[in-house]
């Protein structure tokens, strides 16, 4: 069991405050050494352990009683707060748009959905099934060579392929990061989240430079006498770009699972005569499946709702459902847009629900973990067993260079090249724009500042929200997986629908009793970010809470600790890697968010780095690339800091 003492600076990752010192908490100590809560734990003694010789009416005592009562209701209070935030800033705004799909001209109707389902353009051959044709004929056609997938079918098809490719590119990275020790491993691990943050417009340019006719890939192939290959404007290009975004996600969650495998179980299997492969298959792998599946489910949902990257790298022939949601919104045709977005949401949530059902039946109980010892990257002996995996990793490294590093490297290169060779003029442009840009123009520093402030705000809201929802969904009651899946909805709702809902509702203002209540643009942006990243916190924290040995919780409770006390002193320290991982994802999602930010920003003082990059992309690539490098530097530093604050052996 690793000592997960967050005493040094762990908690300050979450909310930027340091821990108050106090007397040791008996409840926490009662929970046994596993909690690792040290001698400076906060002292709010639970009522059960109150010493009898205190004056029951002294002010400190009264304060203590009040605090105590507050503490006992903390979870409920936070749950109510979370529910309110979600209602006001997500479910209600989205519902105002969705209602257009079923409430047409003053009457409830499902005709829009029926029209969609029967439309071969969207559902291909399946539409005929919905239209009442015989299932046999439809299935026969679907199995034939000239089947029609329809837009929804094609979207699902490319999402499945993208997920498979992301898994294929993510797992070797997870293997490398979890099982090998080499200089820079932790930094590399904290930087794996970078692709998540990149604006699609920049990624598209990077991939053109990598995969295009004159790209680095063809240059490299030319050196070895192959090629040229034309990968641009094809399904392949889209899949590779999706893997660029999502393979790191799969790698990170898998590394986390791998690092929390209990080495003792593995060693026991080995001592009982299992071969290394057999021990891996029977002991380690079952603990990785849930993480890999979680990453896959999330990847499917993301790539199912993909939009700008598809058109930038594939073209309109490969349009996805989200392209049409956007188009219908632009045409102000909310009814059809909402119907289509609901269909999209239903499919995504069905996939998430399937994953959650799986997760529920594959919980591995743990009391914390003792990770397997890492191997050195330099082979200790030249035997096939040592060389094969390392050789495989070397091949993977070459692929990873093209998929992950090359697009980013080409952006850095573009930012340094002008008409006459190497130059810093694009960075000079940023400085000039900062110095002389008008107030109504986008300037680099405010964009950096806003990105950081919004990310901090989103983190401060989404972390408590995510923890509370994790607690609520890991309790035992009927239908909790349904609650869980509804809580995941922000992942799967089209970004433009959320943005429009927020704009028309909270931002324009809601009229009540002659007053108009409105939410400021910046706050709405933070809320939108928090709502879109809190599901990640849930997904990284909940499985850990689920797998904790209940006896730890029960013993703490029996010693008089309140529920929130147990959560803070016992459970969270034990699942701290998950909390740090959730925090990193939250920051990444907030920093990379584009679609609702751009809708909600009122005036140029609320724009973030991705928006600035998009705005600088106009007839020349230099300024936007320079801004992209600024984004790269700022986010890299942020992630390394989060990772370091998480403490050694923490963070995903």
């Amino acid at each position, binding site marked *: 069991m690793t000592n997960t003492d*967050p005493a040094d600076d762990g*908690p300050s990752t*979450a*909310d930027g405050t340091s*821990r*108050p010192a106090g007397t040791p908490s008996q409840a926490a100590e009662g929970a046994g050494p596993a909690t690792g809560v040290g001698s400076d*734990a906060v002292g709010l003694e639970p009522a059960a352990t109150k010493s009898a010789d205190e004056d029951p009416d002294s002010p400190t005592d009264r304060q203590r009683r009040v605090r105590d009562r507050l*503490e006992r209701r*903390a979870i409920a209070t*936070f749950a109510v707060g979370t529910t309110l935030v979600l209602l006001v800033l997500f479910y209600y705004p989205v519902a105002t748009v969705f209602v257009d799909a079923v409430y047409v001209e003053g009457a409830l109707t499902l005709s829009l959905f029926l029209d969609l389902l029967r439309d071969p*353009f969207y559902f291909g051959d399946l539409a005929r099934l919905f239209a009442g044709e015989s299932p046999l004929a439809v299935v026969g056609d679907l199995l034939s060579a000239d089947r*029609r*997938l329809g*837009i929804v079918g*094609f979207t699902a098809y490319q999402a499945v392929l993208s997920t498979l490719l992301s898994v294929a590119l993510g797992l070797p990275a997870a293997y490398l990061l979890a099982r090998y020790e080499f200089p820079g491993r932790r930094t590399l691990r904290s930087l794996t989240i970078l692709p998540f943050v990149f604006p699609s417009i920049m990624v*598209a*340019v990077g991939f*053109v*430079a990598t995969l295009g*006719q004159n790209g680095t890939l063809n240059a490299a192939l030319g050196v070895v006498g192959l090629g040229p290959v034309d990968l*641009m404007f094809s399904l392949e290009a889209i899949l590779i770009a999706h893997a660029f975004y999502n393979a790191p996600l799969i790698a990170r969650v898998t590394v986390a699972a791998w690092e929390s495998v209990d080495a003792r179980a593995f060693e026991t299997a080995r001592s009982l005569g299992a071969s290394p492969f057999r021990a891996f298959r029977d002991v380690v792998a079952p603990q990785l499946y849930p993480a890999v599946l979680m990453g896959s489910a999330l990847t499917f949902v993301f790539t199912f709702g993909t939009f700008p990257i598809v*058109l*930038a790298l594939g*073209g*309109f*022939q*490969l*349009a996805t459902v989200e392209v*049409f949601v956007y*188009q219908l919104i*632009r045409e*102000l045709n909310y009814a059809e847009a909402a119907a289509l977005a609901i269909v999209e949401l239903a499919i995504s949530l069905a996939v998430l629900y399937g994953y959650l059902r799986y997760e529920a039946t594959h919980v591995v109980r743990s009391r914390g973990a003792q990770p397997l010892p890492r191997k050195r990257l330099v082979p200790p002996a030249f035997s096939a067993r040592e060389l094969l995996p390392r050789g495989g990793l070397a091949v993977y490294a070459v692929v990873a260079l093209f998929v992950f590093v090359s697009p980013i490297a080409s952006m850095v290169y573009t930012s340094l090249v002008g*008409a006459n060779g190497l130059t810093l003029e694009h960075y000079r442009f940023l400085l000039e*724009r900062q110095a002389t840009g*008008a107030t*109504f*123009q*986008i300037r680099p520093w405010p964009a950096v500042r806003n990105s950081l402030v919004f990310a901090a*705000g989103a983190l*401060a*809201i989404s972390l*408590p929200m995510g923890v509370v929802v994790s607690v609520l969904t890991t309790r035992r009651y009927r239908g909790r997986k349904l609650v869980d899946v509804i809580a995941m909805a922000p992942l799967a709702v089209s970004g433009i629908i959320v943005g429009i809902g927020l*704009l*028309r509702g909270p931002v*324009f203002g809601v009229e009540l009793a*002659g*007053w*108009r209540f*409105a*939410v*400021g643009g910046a*706050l709405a942006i933070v809320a939108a970010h928090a709502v879109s990243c809190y599901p990640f916190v849930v997904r990284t924290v909940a499985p850990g809470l689920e797998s904790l040995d209940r006896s730890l919780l029960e013993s703490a409770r029996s010693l008089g600790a309140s529920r*929130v006390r147990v959560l803070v002193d016992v459970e*969270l320290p034990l699942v701290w890697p998950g*909390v740090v991982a959730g925090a990193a994802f939250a920051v990444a999602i907030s920093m990379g968010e584009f679609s609702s930010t751009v809708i909600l920003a009122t*005036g140029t003082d609320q724009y973030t780095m991705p928006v600035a990059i998009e705005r*600088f992309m*106009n007839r*020349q*690539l230099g300024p936007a690339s320079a801004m992209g490098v600024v984004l790269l530097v700022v986010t890299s530093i942020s992630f390394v800091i989060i990772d370091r604050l998480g403490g050694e052996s923490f963070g995903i």
Partner: protein
Amino acid sequence: MRRRTFLASGAAVGAAAVAGCSAEEVDDGTGGTTGSVEDDDTIVVASTEAFVDAPSDSAGPWVKDEFEARTGATLEWDVRDQGINYYIERHNEGVGNDAEVYLNVRPHDLVRIDENADGDLFVPIDDGALSNLDDVGEDYYFDPQDRVVPTWLSYCSLVYDGRSLEAPGSFEDLLSEAYRGKLALSNPQEGTTGLLFMLWTIDEFGEDGYLEFWNDLLENDARVLDGWSDVYPQFLEEEVPMIVSYSNDRVYAKRDEQDLEKHQVGFLEGQGYANLLGAARFADGTNDDLAHEFVDFVLEPDVQAAVAERNVTGPVVESAEPPEVYRDYAEHPDEIVFFDYDELSGNLSTWLEDWGREVAGDV
């Protein structure tokens, strides 16, 4: 995380949330402006990103400074990512618009407004209040209801890399082997240039024939990307040697010290599709004098010329003298193609939808 910090963070977040909210009493039913207190010498003008905040150079800052210097008033730009849709939304929600004038309304914006806005988003401008109207070319008016005063004009055309391609002379040429996989353009549902090009094909082939042309065009490996800002970088990166853009491209290339051989303008059948823009007055506006003053200012010949240089859009005022770089490098088609409001109205969304259904899913 410790319990206290956990609770404190909750409290802090709550406090911050309350701090970001505002409540104000609603005006009694006049649907007046919200928020900022209006004073008599500030005018809010809604416009487009490219006009106000393009990285190369944009006309917005110059127009603001010059207008303020000439009138003593204050000009505030209001730029929204959703463009005209934002103002339609606010109008329909009954929260009103603070802006007095929308600069850079296009014919297809008007069609969308009239199909979606409840009542009047824009109202006609009082001709008598504008002194420069006589000078505006008669052909440039595109709103039968006279809400929009034309302000500038540019042309949609092809831009091609002259080092590797010949100029295509006709639409049919685009279907030939020489141009296979050479053309990229923006999605008509998203980017202006793509929309103008689609309308151009409808003018050429009729609404019964344009989809067939598009099918052939895609057969010949043309790329339909998202916005113009996706298309243009691919031209710069030399991934595609021909794009649909504007006929003033060489003005930018000249100023940006790009290779002018690479930036060549091509007109199909000697035509270019007109991209006409204008100014319109918001019905919610409260300051008639300043609004008239602003529109009149935009039509001053020297302002038209200055904007022609900075925004690289042609003037609509006969007496405007554009600067030398514009005269030398901006190209004009022999014949102008243009659908006015009446031709677009009732057709545009159908054309776009049919186009989307034809092109997408064509895997």
